[in-house]
């Protein structure tokens, strides 16, 4: 959502909206003129009423054309037809000689007001005022001529003059207030773009954070804990694999996106084969998760069909994969067991993966604030994809984490 109109569109939009306002009022005037004509013809038995109604309908139809195609030709056509209407109507109405003293009356006012409210071709206050002036001038001239033909008294039409005055005031006000350029000064459009950029930046920071956490932190902690001595081969393999995933790549960008190319897909197929699945070459798998488990020496028993991951977009599947990997790493690191169960399923438009262990269990409230694996790598990742994370853990019994993500996604 972007707040309001930007400065460069305000002029045209305001001009069109004001023209539309004038057209609506003009249609009402012409409609009322038509109704009065029909009533005159039917109730009063005045055949001139039909002429009046037909002319009002013609003007209304021409105004529709001006509204749809505001060209100079359509505007001039409307003004000419309108002036002719006023002329015919004035000579007819004033010829009767009984009802009105002068041309300053409501019946003649209706088409004259509609003439003033022509709107017309082009945008901007000056052009609109020129067209309105032309409409007003032509209307009064036609009324003057009609009065002369009928031998009646001409008098400026008060309603038409009022309509002209309103158009002048509104168009002048619009022209003057737009000069202050408060839209550009406020910079809402720019701010809206900046907000979007900040959101995307934050998203990337979070992804980069999760990435670095997954790849580096556990190794650093292992090195610090190991103290001096030979490098543990399992640690060496773990580092090698993680660095292999990221070195030589733009690691903050390259995070679970669809365009990652062949090598990752090949590893995905390998991992899936290890897990006993038979996915197609392009299907999403839990490659990272199985690799992480194998690396941590964790035996994973899987139930369910990996093919359900096919309902997820590549980005979402990768996020789920990374989150499951972190769950398995946590099991290996904290649960004090060497096997875990993994169940995968799909129902009601959601893919669910449950990671279960029969380890020592823990109380989530007792997890130190600075332990960010569960928060960043699991919860934040899944919630970013519109999913949920539920966790049950009992000390001495084990832990179950259920990750659910909706189908689709990037």
């Amino acid at each position, binding site marked *: 959502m972007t707040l309001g109109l930007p400065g460069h569109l305000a002029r045209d939009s305001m001009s069109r909206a004001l023209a539309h306002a004038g057209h609506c009022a003009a249609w009402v005037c012409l409609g009322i003129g038509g109704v009065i004509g029909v009533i005159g013809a039917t109730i009063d038995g005045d055949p001139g009423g039909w002429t009046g109604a037909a002319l009002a309908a013609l003007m209304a139809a021409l105004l529709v054309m001006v509204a749809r195609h505001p060209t100079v030709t359509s505007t001039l056509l409307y003004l000419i037809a309108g002036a002719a209407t006023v002329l015919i109507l004035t000579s007819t109405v004033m010829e009767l000689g009984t009802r009105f003293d002068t041309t300053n009356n409501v019946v003649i006012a209706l088409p004259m007001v509609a003439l003033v409210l022509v709107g017309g071709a082009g945008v901007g206050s000056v052009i609109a005022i020129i067209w309105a002036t032309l409409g007003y001038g032509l209307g009064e001239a036609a009324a003057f001529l009609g009065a002369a033909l009928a031998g009646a008294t001409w008098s400026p039409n008060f309603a038409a003059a009022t309509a002209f005055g309103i158009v002048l005031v*509104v168009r002048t006000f619009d022209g003057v207030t737009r000069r202050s350029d408060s839209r550009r000064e406020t910079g809402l459009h720019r701010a809206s773009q900046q907000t979007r950029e900040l959101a*995307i930046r934050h998203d990337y920071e979070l992804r980069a*954070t999760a990435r670095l956490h997954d790849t580096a932190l556990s190794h650093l902690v292992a090195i610090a804990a190991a103290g001096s001595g030979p490098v543990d081969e399992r640690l060496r393999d773990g580092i090698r694999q993680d660095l292999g995933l990221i070195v030589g790549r733009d690691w903050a960008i390259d995070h679970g996106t669809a365009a990652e190319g062949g090598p990752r897909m090949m590893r995905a197929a390998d991992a899936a084969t290890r897990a006993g699945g038979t996915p197609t070459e392009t299907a999403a798998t839990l490659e990272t998760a199985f690799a992480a488990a194998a690396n941590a020496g964790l035996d994973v028993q899987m139930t369910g069909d990996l093919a359900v991951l096919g309902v997820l977009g590549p980005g979402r599947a990768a996020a789920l994969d990374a989150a499951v990997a972190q769950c398995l790493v946590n099991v290996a690191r904290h649960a004090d067991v060497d096997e875990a169960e993994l169940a995968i399923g799909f129902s009601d438009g959601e893919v669910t993966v449950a990671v279960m262990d029969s380890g020592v269990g823990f109380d989530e409230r007792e997890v130190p604030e600075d332990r960010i694996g569960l928060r960043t790598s699991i919860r934040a990742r899944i919630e970013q994809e519109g999913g949920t994370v539920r966790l049950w853990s009992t000390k001495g019994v084990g832990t179950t984490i259920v990750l659910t993500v909706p189908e689709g996604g990037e």
Partner: protein
Amino acid sequence: MSRMRLTQQEADPIGGLTAAPIVPIGAVIAFAASVVLTIAHWDEVGAPIAAALGIAFVAAAGVTASLSASPQFAPFTADRLWVIVALAVGGAIAEYISTIGANRYLYDDYGPAVVGLLILSVAPFCTWISLVLAGVLAAAVLSILVVGSAAATMTTVPLVSLFAVSSAAVLSLSAAAAGYSYAIVDETLAWQRDANRAALRRDAELREGIARSVQQSRISVLGREVLPFLAGVMTADRITVADADRARELAEALRRALKEGIESTWLDDLAATVRASRSIPVVVVDPDAAARDLDDDQRSALTALISWLGDGRRSSAIRIALAADTHGRRISVVADAGAEPPARRDLDRFAAVARAVSMRAEVDITGENVSVELSHVLE
């Protein structure tokens, strides 16, 4: 939201703010019309008190309309329209009573024109449907007066024609009001759809650019220290005590950076941007990460305000504090006056924008600083 339920003030807050002065202009014209036309047909006036009362009603309607549309009482609510219309129709009724039995022409009565003019004046603040309703109901009430007037003057003109004539002014002006409201909201929503589509298209390249700049961020710089270190350990035969110490340091730094990264919000990023580009201190105090609760439009409104305050030597320092309770959020933006401190008129623009995105806004300016208090209630 559909265009039926939106006003220009909501869809285009700056446009609504810019349109506010048209209301007193319309009110003055309506008042002047009532005075001039009363004097013009003074020979028809049989009850001068009613005539004066009519003018007073018109003045009251004009004042109500002007106050209702002024930025400090924004947003304009639907009930204000009905109060204005009721007062204006009261003026028309008083005028009718003042000339009862002696009114020669309906054409020179100010009642319908004044009601229509006031409805037209408040068009930027009302939905098109409420403007149509106001016009039709006012026309219906005025038609009742026509019946009385026709009975009194014993005119030969058919009553239906008199209805049509008497309602022409109020209906045409209300139609103009509704047509304007509909068209401007439609134009604004169309632009917003286009802008959103363009923004989505731009997102891909934006992501690429931002991802590259993320490489320069705190996390990335740390990553550049961590990854070579791990590569070194991987290729080494032994881990030394120095390696273990360095690993501990890096793990601590990484944890700290990750924690800060997780806890920071878009507002911290914005503050960092303003700080870097304008070289003024910008402090964000947001212990509960309340900035995350703001929706896109509210974020845009706050971003516009902070960017504007940080621009053009308006402020020497900016402090943004967010406080949350169970009912809502309070956002306090305090800017110490710079070489060219902002004027209230300028800040009113931002307050109007904030009100358009469901936040209450109060602006306070002293010689030393500018304070904008925003609050919004959680739904």
